[in-house]
């Protein structure tokens, strides 16, 4: 099958999976509405908190209020997209291994990583993507931003890279479930990811914080996930950082893919 036909097939399957999960979510309407309400409340609390901070200071770590607002929107949209597409699927993987329900997925004539990590879309997180986008649009309006095709393209590319980097980390941790069976590290990692990625990397200054910031920028590049796209769009366009992000994305996707396939080779399948 040529790459174009293959991509079209996978898109069709993704569309079908999305439709199925939406039907499923709508069957449990109450749960869906509660989840969306919680996310709206969470965004409102975050925005109120930053409003309070900026009422006492004109900038935080070199970011002025609209810039910071854009950063928050970018984080919210990116985080929402990852939670919507991958978090539930990756989190469920250890349970699939433990119960042996992974068997049914491995038998399908389709890429295992695709099916395992994309089979369910958490529609309850979809509003986060829209709300984050709305916050970004509001920030751009506040700073009277003028459309710049290069910056916009670089933002979209680095935003996609941010999603891919977070996905690669998830796949790496998820793969460990094959050996560990019970694996709660994914949620711990996601908490760490959310905590680190939601702040500008400039806050890591000072004797102890700076090495930590370097570590999470160059060694485990969580800090670049939101910082680079937000910087590209509303602050300085740093080509070196963009290039580093592209390289880090390619490398992490490749490593996580190899590790996932290696892990599947060790899959034992639970007794029936």
């Amino acid at each position, binding site marked *: 099958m040529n790459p174009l036909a293959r991509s079209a097939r996978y898109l069709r399957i993704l569309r*079908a*999976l999305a439709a*199925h999960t939406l039907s499923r979510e709508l069957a449990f309407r109450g749960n869906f509405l509660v989840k969306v309400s919680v996310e709206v409340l969470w965004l409102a609390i975050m925005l109120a908190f930053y409003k309070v901070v900026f009422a006492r200071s004109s900038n935080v770590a070199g970011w002025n209020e609209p810039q910071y607002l854009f950063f928050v929107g970018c984080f919210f949209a990116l985080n929402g997209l990852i939670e919507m597409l991958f978090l539930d699927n990756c989190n469920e993987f250890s349970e699939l291994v433990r119960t042996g329900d992974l*068997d049914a997925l491995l*038998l399908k*004539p389709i890429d295992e990583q695709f099916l395992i990590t994309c089979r369910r879309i958490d529609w309850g997180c979809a509003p986060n993507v829209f709300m984050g986008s709305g916050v970004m649009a509001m920030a751009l309006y506040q700073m009277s931003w003028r459309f710049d095709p290069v910056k916009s393209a670089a933002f979209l590319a680095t935003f996609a890279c941010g999603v891919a980097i977070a996905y690669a980390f998830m796949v790496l941790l998820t793969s460990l479930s094959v050996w560990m069976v019970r694996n709660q590290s994914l949620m711990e990692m996601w908490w760490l990811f959310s905590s680190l990625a939601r702040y500008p990397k400039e806050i890591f200054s000072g004797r102890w914080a700076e090495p930590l910031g370097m570590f999470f920028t160059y060694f485990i590049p969580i800090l670049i996930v939101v910082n680079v796209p937000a910087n590209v769009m509303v602050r300085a366009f740093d080509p070196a950082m963009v290039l580093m992000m592209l390289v880090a994305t390619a490398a992490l996707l490749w490593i996580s893919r190899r590790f996932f396939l290696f892990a599947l080779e060790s899959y*034992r*399948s639970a007794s029936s």
Partner: protein
Amino acid sequence: MGMIEARNLRKTYRAVQKQTGLVGSLRGLFHREYREVKAVAGVSFTIEPGEMVAFLGPNGAGKTTTLKMLSGLIHPTSGDARVLDHVPWKREDSFRRQFSLVMGQKNQLWWDLPAADSFQLHREIYSIPRAEYDETLSELTDLLGVEKLTKQAVRELSLGERMKMELIAALLHRPRVLLLDEPTIGLDVVAQTKIQRCLKDYHARRGVTVLLTSHYMRDVEALCERVLVINHGALIYDGPLAGVIERFGETKLVKLRFEGPPPDDLESFGELVRREGPFADIKVERARVAMVLAAILERSVVADVSVEEPPLEEVISRVFEEAEAAHDAA
């Protein structure tokens, strides 16, 4: 070349030995003990295209592990296998499109949605052309009598109905090889019979190659002419179903109806299993059946007589017991 070939297939696991109690658990954090479990210990067989073969053995004998290796879910420790001329554990798409594994204790349908939705998703994943999909779905729902149930949420179906839906999902892409792991487990006799009939009809129509494990000998008798028997990971019999009875069924059941009351000394001919009014059933060693019959007919007036093979359950149970004894002795 066979449709399914296994050559000296072995699978050995390292199982953690957990020590009991809190102290044992703490010790286990630093020092783990493992035991080597030989799940499959060098199994070889060939199944020709269109054959329907039963794979029998007690719990833990290695049946499911063998099926999992043949379907590519797990890698063998050593040995080789070919299914549809593919190495199963390479899990090539071209291989996975041509076979199905149905596990009676596992569910592959979307629990909260109607089975029809899962079938549609299946159509997308297997790229089944619309016309072929409609034709196969109609054929299968008709065979299993579940036309009206496909739009009901799977979680609301009974076990038997759910199993029928699982079977439909497994057959929608018209597999050439079908691996069935206890497909009728927990089902009532009516559902069992329905599934047996469906498999039989489907096999006759499409010539699919089937390897079936089941603890219900009724399934085996209804569907398979050839039997593989495995115990402790090793194959102990490969041959016709009738041959199992011939080889391991040491006795036959002689059923007699006398003109008057049965004679008192029937125990001297074999094990008397029933004595009611004019009826008497005796288990007699196979080699002595003719002699026993002649002796009884000479001494008593018999209104009716029949000689039956022992039930398959009994024979298979004996096979397992003998294999167990041989294994323990070794």
